[in-house]
């Protein structure tokens, strides 16, 4: 308890959060540099971008290790830590695949998602001082949170695929040489990837939300309690469902589908933390 108290008193900003902030700055730099790579049409080997993301990943790792040592346990106990963990797995996966020259271009797309997630994680409300018991100590709570994060991760990856699709589609429409010179996959494959990831996201979100009434019952003694975050999650679930159904039934594919996928994820990233703040169920 004393240790946790000291951790809170030392103001996290100067410790692991400071490192994480620097890592997010790195993701931001990479995101800005990626714009130049886009303009070049991914013709050049984007080694610089890889190195920027490598540096940012190192800072990110230091931030996570410091947090882990400070709280003397695996640093996945609240929304901040879970988000930084998801971001870290994305960047590490990219660094591995980026060892292969042909796959290094993915960094130009991943950097924007990393920046988004990084900024999202830095919202102060996501990292409240640790209680004696971690937020996700309960097995059901952990499962619920994991599934929701997996859903967000799948939606995030579908947004990356959508970004790739829109870039490639724009170049093909406007007869740019870089459309065929770039290393991006065919747009039809990207559309299938988007679809598959959205389906996975919907699946994880559905199962994650399925546990909600049991958690509410455990905490408040009733199965249903009106809550802004719960209403918001149901809205997100329905929105993605409509997106998928309109694609299957009415052939709403292509650019419109990609913009909707990208826009939905941007909406989640920009609003999720706000609804979390408004949610009494998740704040107690």
């Amino acid at each position, binding site marked *: 308890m004393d240790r946790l108290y000291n951790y809170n008193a030392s103001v996290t900003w100067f410790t692991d959060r400071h490192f994480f902030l620097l890592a997010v700055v790195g993701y931001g730099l990479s995101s800005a540099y990626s714009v130049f790579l886009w303009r070049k049409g991914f013709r050049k080997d984007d080694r610089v971008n890889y190195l920027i993301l490598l540096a940012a990943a190192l800072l990110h790792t230091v931030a996570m290790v410091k947090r882990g040592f400070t709280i003397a346990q695996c640093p996945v106990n609240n929304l901040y830590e879970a988000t930084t963990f998801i971001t870290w797995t994305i960047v590490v996966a990219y660094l591995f695949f980026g060892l292969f020259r042909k796959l290094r271009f993915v960094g130009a797309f991943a950097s924007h998602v990393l920046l988004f997630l990084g900024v999202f994680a830095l919202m102060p409300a996501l990292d409240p001082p640790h209680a004696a018991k971690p937020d996700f100590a309960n097995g059901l709570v952990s499962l619920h949170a994991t599934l929701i994060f997996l859903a967000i991760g799948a939606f995030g990856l579908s947004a990356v695929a959508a970004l790739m699709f829109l870039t490639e589609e724009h170049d093909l429409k406007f007869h740019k040489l870089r459309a065929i*010179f770039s290393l991006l996959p065919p747009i039809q*494959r990207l559309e299938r990837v988007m679809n598959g990831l959205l389906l996975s996201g919907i699946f994880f979100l559905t199962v994650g939300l399925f546990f909600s009434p049991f958690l509410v019952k455990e905490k408040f003694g009733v199965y249903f309690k009106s809550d802004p975050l719960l209403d918001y999650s149901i809205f997100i679930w329905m929105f993605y469902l409509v997106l998928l159904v309109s694609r299957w039934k009415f*052939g709403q594919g292509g650019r419109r589908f990609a913009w909707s996928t990208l826009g939905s994820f941007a909406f989640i990233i920009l609003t999720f933390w706000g609804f979390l703040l408004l949610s009494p169920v998740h704040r107690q």
Partner: protein
Amino acid sequence: MKFVVIGVSHHASPIELRERFAFAESHIPEQLKALLDTGIVAEAVILSTCNRVEIYAASRFEPGQVFAALKQYLLQRKENLDHPLPDEASMGIYTLSEPHSLHHLFKVASGLDSMVLGETEILGQLKTAYALAHTHRHTGAKLNKAFQRAFNVAKHIRTETNIQRGSVSVASVAVELAQKIFSALEERAVLILGAGETSEKVARALLSRGAKSLIVSNRSPERAEALAREFGGRTVPFDDWSQEFDRVDIVISSTSAPHPILDRAKLEPLMRSRKNRPLLLVDIAVPRDIDPAVNFLGNVYLYNIDDLQAIADDYLALRKEEIARCEQIIAEKARPLLEVKTSKPQLNAENAGLKAFPTGI
């Protein structure tokens, strides 16, 4: 021992002349043997393709004497004795000695000296020519080293530069576009409207990359049937081609219609019925068959002949930009081979008691 090259190529010699110097592959071993038997060259490789005929040789004699002898050898071949050749100056025969001969070999291997800059077919032809000479023991240390290094340089240039990237013909650009739109060409059906020469080339290129099926529609049914038969496809009457839109993914249009045969109003309902699956339209007709406004429709990708040519030209320009880099690599890679000095003095052919070239071989 010096490495020398003599030959004719597409740069300065027309096809009428190149074919006179060409060697049939089956005759090359005996031609090489005859060449080596004279003693003027110790090692030799003959490269004979549609764009060039070259003899790569290693000799202990003065290059000037070797060139004179090799020129005589080429001019006195049976084909050239039977039919008189033009004067020597207009034949475009070139002779190269070190270091230019080595640089030339590396350039040929890398496609830098080819008619289509950066093409890769020449490397295979060069490997075959070398293997033929090597198998019959007409190469030695000098040529083995030079050719192995040439293959290595070609590989290095292919991976480190953009000289071989992209397509430089309209047909292959169309194929590359299709590969950037569709996840697998194997599942794609192609519709040809108007069976012209270029549309035939594009269809051939698409089918060679695995496109599933071909439908041909032409005002003259005989021509359509001939083309469909050649590619194993089927025909549809010209008035009914729009009914095939549900089944096709790529449309190549080259009719001689004076006005567009496909416009936005006609395509919009067709796209709805095919559930907005991507559609690649390649319009190679002049005047154009497809109204440019259809490109504003979602999932429709329209390219006309100028768009395709512009991409091919851009690719070519990009390849040309890479020439300086390639030449730098070639100079670097050739240097170690050129620095190996021989202590033996070069021989004079007149005092060496060599056999004369047999004529009419």
